[in-house]
């Protein structure tokens, strides 16, 4: 096995992924005096997704300033380097094994790294056309927003001139803005649900830009042999029609880039699609921690940054003196209104938790009572009306009253007549 020349073969913490979460964590670990912190990123430069986002807003939480993605990424990298973290780019981690062993690919060949702890911060990607089971032909020009952003902002290129945008999440509006920036004219926004997914401020935007929005409408087929020529749409009433376009932007429906977990030995959570963790971000392997969007789809850069920081604090404490864990409580979702929650387990005592709340998302619009129960007792409850893709936070500290040998149940008791 040819060894990559300038890579260390051992370190204290190997951070996989140099996006906001990974860079924040590396900086914080150095501040806590951890000697060797190595950040590994497969891209030619660290910074993660924001490096591809030539738009605002980034950085309010971190720098108290509204920055563009690349400037924000640059500042995070500089901070991590100043703090003494070692950033290795162009390095792909292909495998992690119990005992803190990472397998690497570099342009010079393969390598191995031994770490006392591993922190996974590999982020999310959008759900592909294939995973959405969209039928039709397979022309080029069907892209996720991530691809559009890197073409437009990093390469100064454009893949099409008149695409349709599938989805109406925040990122879909980011796609809309990126199109506008590049002189690309979206023909329509298409949303399978009856309402726009993103928060209300975005709702006026397509109208403002003169882009028609089709709600309750699906892309049934993609048409075109070499390049996209049209999409066939179908609405709730079963009406079908073709819309001419030369590309399709598959926006949103984020899913964690959890390949290392999936292919390796970590327990995965079917709800988030990421590794199962406790309130410190610790996975089923006690030497492997997780932070940022890999925990769940999808949060802002600032949120992911904060998580990186907090998980790093837990990790630093763990390096000093691993905490004795007496009681582990599994959190179980009841019913199908809740899509996921994080963390999926907690270990008592709860003090100094890295994840300060239980993060939850609903699978569909729902109204009723959200309850945390333990051994038939209600620990916490709140009435609310919830929409998908919105952040919902539940207090973590109520779990200190949970019955020790029962799973904690989280349930959304829905009311009729929504």
């Amino acid at each position, binding site marked *: 096995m040819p060894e990559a020349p300038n890579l260390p073969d051992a370190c204290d913490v190997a951070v996989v992924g140099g996006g906001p979460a990974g860079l924040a964590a590396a900086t914080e670990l150095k501040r806590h005096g951890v000697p060797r912190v190595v950040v590994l990123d497969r891209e030619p430069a660290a910074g993660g997704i924001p490096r591809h986002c030539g738009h605002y807003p980034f950085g309010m939480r971190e720098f108290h300033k509204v920055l563009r993605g690349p400037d924000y990424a640059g500042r995070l990298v500089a901070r991590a380097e100043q703090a003494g973290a070692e950033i290795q780019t162009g390095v792909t981690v292909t495998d992690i094994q119990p005992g803190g062993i990472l397998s690497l690919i570099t342009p010079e060949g393969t390598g191995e790294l031994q770490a006392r702890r591993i922190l996974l911060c590999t982020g999310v990607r959008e759900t592909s056309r294939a995973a959405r089971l969209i039928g039709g032909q397979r022309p080029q020009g069907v892209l*996720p927003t991530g691809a559009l952003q890197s073409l437009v902002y990093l390469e100064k*290129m454009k893949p099409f001139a008149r695409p349709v945008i599938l989805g109406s999440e925040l990122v879909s509006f980011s796609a809309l803005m990126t199109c506008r920036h590049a002189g690309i004219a979206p023909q329509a926004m298409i949303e399978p649900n009856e309402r726009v997914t993103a928060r209300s401020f975005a709702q006026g935007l397509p109208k403002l830009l003169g882009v028609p929005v089709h709600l309750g409408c699906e892309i049934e087929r993609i048409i075109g042999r*070499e390049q996209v020529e049209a999409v066939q749409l179908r609405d709730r009433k079963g009406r079908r029609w073709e819309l001419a376009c030369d590309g399709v932007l598959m926006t949103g429906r984020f899913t964690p880039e959890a390949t290392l977990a999936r292919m390796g030995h970590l327990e995965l959570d079917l709800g988030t699609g990421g590794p199962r963790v406790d309130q410190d971000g610790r996975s089923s392997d006690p030497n492997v921690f997780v932070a940022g969007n890999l925990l769940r789809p999808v949060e802002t850069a600032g949120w992911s940054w904060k998580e990186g920081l907090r998980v790093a604090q837990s990790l630093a404490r763990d390096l000093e003196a691993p905490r004795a864990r007496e009681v582990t409580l599994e959190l179980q979702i009841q019913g199908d209104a809740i899509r996921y929650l994080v963390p999926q387990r907690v270990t008592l005592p709860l003090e100094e938790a890295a994840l300060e709340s239980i993060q939850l998302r609903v699978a569909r619009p729902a109204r009723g009572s959200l309850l945390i129960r333990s051994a038939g007792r209600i620990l916490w409850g709140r009435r609310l009306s919830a929409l998908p893709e919105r952040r919902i936070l539940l207090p973590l500290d109520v779990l200190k009253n949970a019955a020790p040998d029962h799973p904690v149940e989280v349930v959304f008791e829905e009311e009729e007549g929504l």
Partner: protein
Amino acid sequence: MSQADASLPERYDVAIVGGGVVGCAMARRFTLEGARVVLLEKAVDILDGASKGNSAILHTGFDAPPSSLEQRCIAEGHAEFLEIRESLGLPLLQCSAIVAAWSEEEVARLEELMDQARANGVDDIVPLSAAEIRAAEPSLSGKVKGGFRVPREALMDPWSTPHAYLLQALANGAEVRRACEVTGGQFDGSSWLLETSTEVLRAHSVINCAGLFGDLLDQRLLGETGFSIKPRKGQFLVFDKAAAQLVSSIILPVPTEKTKGIVVCRTVFGNVLVGPTAEDQESRCDSSTDAATLKSLQGKAAEIVPGLAEIPVTASYAGLRPASEQKDYRIQAYPERNYVSVGGIRSTGLSAALGIARHVLGLHQGFGPRFTAPRQPRVPEVPSRLSEYDPRAWEEAGNGGIVCHCELVTRAEIERVLQGPLPPRSLSGLKRRTRVTMGRCQGFYCTGALARITEGAFDSPLAVRAAEGEDEDA
């Protein structure tokens, strides 16, 4: 036809029409025999027809109609593939197949199928009880009732294989024309004058390997044809690589009259494949998928291997079988017109192609000239090794870094293919040669870098440079 055309000298012994797997194997065979070969393909790249999407199984022919031409060609093709694959750098996943019965009616048919296998010379099959199947395939649904193992069924690389055949032909003097459709031709009693969309050329013989258009080409050139193509679509789903831990053998159903049925198997690329359907249709080129069928395939997959319900889908595609109105290959020589029609190579052409080529060479010897084989045929350089189960290019120093992160395709591999003897002119061609963008992210991470690397290489580029001034602030 002009005066000049009529006096065009005969530059080729054999013109092969069609760059599917059959045409590629044909070009290799005739070139290695010493013939001057030209292969004519109407699409911008080879492998644009039936050979674009299949299950990639190297069949033994155990379930082929006994003593059919198809069965003979599969047996010969299989044997020759095993002989040459290492020298051509072609992967093979020798994982064997299990024919699994899921109902008592299917169990009742196993005996007859095993007899058929033995009659086809596949005498190493092993009957398996339900318990033995579960022991061998612990992730398979517990509902399996019994079956048998076919040890020599294996998995191929469906694209590198025909590429390697054609590259070997090119390395030994054959020529290829892409984006060159045969539109007509005349036989003057001793040779053919072929009209194409780009040029006119003269060849002693014509071999029709036009797959889904075989009957139409016969009509065009001979004014008659012995068969008619009945396209039969097959849709597939591809599961992410984590699924490969769930299946070891190729899981075949008990075949029916019409189809081999839905298969679950790994791919040499490390994924798991589920399909194909069998849908008769009129169109010879519409290989589109539909959501309802993909959804039902996803359900079917989870019925066979329950763990697949939790694994994401990374790709879907469809292929068209060039079936005809009969259940055998339709290969016919027209000796008085120096012509062989290779039709109806329906659902086993990848396995049988080398055997078909030998069979056609035999037919050609009945009317064609004798060739003198080169003493030391050249072996082409292997542009990329794509099997997940063999060493990959990223393991080498100087790989240039990873461009496609999901499939671990290196910059060096992409550049080698773009500068090679048969460069792709479209993204689909580059995909088939290197697997870029074929993984789980479908371009989320690599499209930008890829657009830059392939600039100028494709007829329709992945992206164009933004015009000056367009890159201002929004």
